[in-house]
Every structure is written in C-alpha cells, then in structure tokens.
C-alpha cells in the first residue's frame, strides 16, 4: 500500500474505496489513530455510586471504568498483573474488589493490588514480589468533560478540554441542559458488518442522505423535518475535532419558542436558558439552527431529533450518543445510549425515550436504513475493483477546490468554527483530514511496565477524575 498516495487522494477529496474494507488500513488505524486519540468510554451517570463499574473496550483492549470507595473514577486495563487473565468478566455491576479467577489475585476498585495468595511462601514476600504499590495498569491518559469519560493510550495526550476546542460549544448543547447534567441509559449493543468510519463520517455531516435514505419516516408522518427542502436549509459546521449538522427552525420564534417547537417542556427551558451561554442561545434564537447529528473524532457521534410520538402529533426530542467501536476492517460494534437531562420531568423522560426507540438504536426506524447502506458499502469496498475506484467526496467545492458558496458569517450562524448552509461534504473531508493526519504519524510512544521486581516504584494511577470535577 502506498500510504502517501492514499492520503494525498483523501486530502483532495477522492477516497480510495478500499479504505472501507482494508486490513492494512485497519492495522494503521489501530496503531496510529486509536493508540493516540482521545476515545470515549463511559459517562459518570452510568457509575453513580462507589463500587459501580462498567467494562468498555478500545478496540481489543478491555478497561474497567470504576468509581472507587472515595467516589473517584478510575480507568484500569482489565488484565491481571500475574498471568494476564481478564480480571472482570462482567460488563457492569458493583464491587469493592475484583478477584482474578485464575490464582485469586485481588484488586481494590481503585486498581490497587490488595492481596495474592501465599505471598510469603510463593515469592518470599516483598523481596520476591513487591506487592505494595502494585495496581492494574491505569489508562495512560484519562480525562472527562460534562461527565463524559475519555481515555487515550498516549501518556502525552493533550488535556481533553484542549483537544475538544470549539466542539465543546456544541457538546454542551447535547450534554449540559441543566445543572444536573445528562444521564445515559443503555447502551444497546450490536454488531454490524460495516467499517467503523462510515457511521462516523455520516453523522459528522451527511445531511444529503437524509431526504432519500430516510424517506420512509417522512412517508409515515413520523418526522416533519427530513424532506429535502428542509434539510438543505440546515447548516453544517466544523469545530475543532468535531463536525455536525443542524436543522433550520421556523422563523420568528424566540429562544423558548424554538425549544418548545422541538418539544422541550416548559419546566426545562429556564435551566437551558441558564446553562447555555449567550452565544449558544443565539445559535438557536437568532440564527435559528438546532443541532442534529454530529461526530467527535474519531468515533463518538451524537444525534438530536424530534419525532411525533403519538397519534395526537405530540413532538418529543431525544438525544443519543453512539460509538462506532471497530472490531475489524469489516465489522463494528455499535453502542447506542439514550441520553436525557437528569433533571427533566418524568413524563418528558418517558416521551423522549419513546422518541429515541422509534428513531435510533437497534430497532430505530432511521438507524435501520443507515446500517443497510453501511454494510453494503463495506461489502463493495472489499474487492479488487474497489481498488480502482476513488469515490468523489468533493461536494461543495469547485474544480479549483474553492467552496461553491462562502462560509456563513457570524451574523447568520452564531456558533464557533466554519459553517456552510445547504449540502456539502465539508464535514466528512474535515473528519478524513484528521484521520489522514493520524495515519501518517508514527505511533505514540508506549512505556512498558515491569510488574513486581523489588525496588520498582508504584504504578498507581495519577489520572483519576474526582466526583463532580467533570461538571
């Protein structure tokens, strides 16, 4: 594979089709992208109490995300320090300790090694194996924002907030609607025979697919919005490592009117008014745009839509977070969470949950048709002919590479970053540029850790997140 030529093609908006089913490309993604980038693991609301844990992966690496007895969140590589067994084989629960089934090495829920059988008889005590200070390997870097817990396998990763940059502005709209913050439910998990990049790109900016792929949900009157005439009025934005789509709201409403239009109830509007900055409110009230789908590079996506959830035409908005977890170049595990403001009234939560289930997730009527497309693309990309085909990803550009229309001024789109109104593949190209940048960098340095020789310093995690620090 000629990596330089492939990336040059991608950067001019011509995508060699094989990248969606190529094991060599996948190995580079594993070694150069997922070994460095910030990757989402869990939300603090999934582990509210001391001892609560979930087990999540970054590709093949399993991590325990646990809240320890002091309320601090820890992320630990789920491999016993002794013989390498997976220490915790459940995906969620509550535990003060994790005990390896193989030889009963036991770890506290902050990762510290609490005991190993026959320490004196088997090892001669501390001299043969220095138990003190040993702990499950911490994630090399860990950080959180609005309760969203991310890790990076790169110990020198930049602070998460620096990484998020201008995308934090948009992230807040999904995850900071009241002082209580968002709560996540789920995830629904399923495996699809599709390359992980396709979903990430789609959510980043593909408003062009909505009128056709999702025509059926308009046919049945579930959704007022995806008609082509509506979708092309929306704005696409690129901000930091993220990008997303918006819908144009009906003209004339103030902030509260627009929130009510998409189905937020009166009880929630004061908190949203309080939590969002003037600029965030202006995006809705003055510019008239409401966020819809988005992707935070590399593989965390968001969606916010507002279907009609009963025969009376009641509209309810929902938020979903979803992760495209790569399994191989041809298979992805999708994790899809329902997210809702933790302080929302119970009836709103019920309505929003219903809206989510009808639209997204394993059974969602939008998602069903998306995945059909992505599986098909992956199948087609796996053969020889796909190596001859460079897919055109230049929508919105002239032959000279200039935008066919200027970016929106701040007076028309109040959010940060660069925004264009109408259809275009600006966002997907942005995502692919970040992808290309990772693929041509050497892998991040990894420091091997010897376990247990006498005199070795402790490896206890320094990168924990205390309760509330994320808010």
């Amino acid at each position, binding site marked *: 594979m000629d990596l330089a030529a492939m990336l040059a093609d991608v950067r001019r908006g011509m995508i060699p089709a094989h990248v969606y089913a190529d094991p060599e490309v996948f190995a580079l993604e594993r070694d150069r992208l997922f070994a460095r980038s910030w990757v989402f693991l869990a939300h603090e609301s999934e582990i509210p109490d001391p001892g609560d844990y979930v087990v999540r992966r970054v590709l093949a690496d399993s991590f325990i995300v646990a809240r320890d007895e002091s309320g601090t969140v820890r992320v630990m590589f789920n491999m016993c320090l002794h013989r390498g067994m997976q220490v915790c084989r459940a*995906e*969620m629960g509550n535990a003060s300790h994790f005990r390896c089934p193989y030889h009963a090495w036991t770890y506290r829920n902050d990762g510290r090694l609490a005991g190993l059988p026959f320490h004196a008889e088997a090892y001669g005590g501390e001299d043969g194996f220095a138990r003190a200070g040993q702990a499950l390997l911490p994630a090399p870097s860990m950080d959180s924002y609005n309760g969203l817990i991310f890790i990076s396998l790169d110990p020198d990763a930049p602070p998460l907030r620096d990484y998020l940059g201008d995308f934090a502005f948009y992230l807040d709209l999904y995850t900071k609607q009241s002082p209580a913050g968002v709560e996540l439910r789920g995830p*629904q998990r*399923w495996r699809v025979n599709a390359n992980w990049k396709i979903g990430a790109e789609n959510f980043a900016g593909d408003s062009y697919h909505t009128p056709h792929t999702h025509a059926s*949900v308009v046919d049945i009157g579930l959704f007022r919005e995806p008609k082509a005439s509506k979708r092309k009025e929306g704005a696409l934005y690129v901000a930091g490592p993220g990008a997303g789509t918006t819908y144009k709201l009906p003209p004339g409403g103030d902030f509260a009117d627009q929130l009510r239009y998409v189905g937020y109830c009166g009880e929630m509007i004061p908190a949203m008014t309080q939590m969002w900055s003037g600029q965030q409110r202006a995006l809705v009230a003055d510019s008239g745009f409401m966020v819809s789908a988005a992707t935070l590079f590399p593989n965390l996506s968001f969606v916010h839509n507002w279907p009609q959830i009963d025969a009376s035409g009641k509209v309810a908005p929902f938020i979903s977070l979803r992760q495209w977890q790569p399994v191989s170049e041809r298979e992805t595990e999708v994790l899809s969470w329902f997210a809702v403001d933790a302080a929302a009234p119970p009836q709103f939560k019920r309505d929003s949950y219903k809206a989510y289930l009808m639209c997204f997730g394993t059974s969602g009527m939008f998602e069903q048709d998306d995945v059909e497309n992505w599986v098909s693309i992956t199948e087609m990309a796996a053969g020889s002919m796909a190596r001859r085909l460079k897919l055109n990803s230049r929508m919105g550009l002239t032959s000279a590479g200039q935008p066919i229309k200027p970016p929106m001024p701040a007076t028309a789109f109040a959010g940060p970053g660069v925004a264009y109104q109408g259809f275009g593949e600006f966002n997907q190209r942005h995502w692919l540029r970040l992808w290309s940048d990772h693929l041509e960098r050497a892998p991040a340095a990894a420091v091997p850790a010897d376990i247990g020789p006498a005199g070795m310093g402790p490896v206890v995690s320094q990168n924990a997140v205390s309760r509330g620090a994320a808010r």
Partner: protein
Amino acid sequence: MTAARPLPYADPAHLAAHQFLVEEAALLDAGDYEGWLGLLTDDIRYLMPVRVTTARGAGFDTLADMGHFDEDMYALRKRVQRLATDHAWTEDPPSRTRHFVTNVRTFRNAADALLVESALLMFRSRGDTREADLLSAGRADLLRETGDGLRLARREISVDESVLRTQNLAVFL
C-alpha cells in the same frame, strides 16, 4: 406471577395458545404485518429489554430502563406502515425469516387471560453474500380472550445475547 404448574399439554387452553403462537409466526414469516397487528390488543405492550453480562451474584442480567423495543400500538403501527412504504431499504429486498417457536408452556392467569412462555429462534437471511443471522430469545406473553379469539396484550422478549449479531431489528420477534 405464573401459576406454579403449566397447564397439561392436552388442555384446550394450552392447545389454543400454542396454535396462536404458530399462526402468529406464520404471519410474520409471510411478511403479513397488517395481519400480525390484527392479533394484538389495542393496549399492547411489546417489550425487549437489553440483556447484560453480570456476575452471578449481581441479582440482575437485564437493564430495567433500556430496551431494544418498548412499544405501544402507535409505535408498532408506525413500524408496520414504514415497512409498507417504497423506501424501507433495509427490508427491500426483504429478509427471509423463519420463526421457530418451541418450549411452549401455558399458565392460567385469570379467567380471561393466559400467560404463555415460549422459546424463539429466528433465522434471518439477507441477500446472497452475507452470513445469515440467528436471534434466540425467550418470550413471556399475555394472551387475552376476546370475542374474536385470543389476542396478544403483552410480550416481553428476553433475548439471549448482550450484543446482538444482526444488523437491526427491522423484524418482529
């Protein structure tokens, strides 16, 4: 919630419940979703909670607040209407499905209702290049006697995988 013992297999109520499930499966495999809706009561609850992998002592293996389905008649009707449009791409061409229904146990729940537990294996084949999918699940159904015969008033599907190996649930279980 169930009576201690299932009805004898020769009990007419059990035979009627078993026949109901087999006839329902025939409608689903034939793609007759309008016909299938006709087997449901207007107050149907159609649930499929997310199963999770937990320690034996955890006391739960199902998420209480998250499902793959949590449907009323409005939601099910929308799904059926969607499949009937010309734009439901994921089922056009349609899957070939076979609902295998077995291990049927019937319990008398009330004078006019039966609780019926069954095992379901659904085979789903799409196209000509992909591996077929299997979904295995237990089902707990509430069948109500109506003037038109038995109708399904509630179904809770307990799927046997925590991570589904099918591209979506554009199918009914």
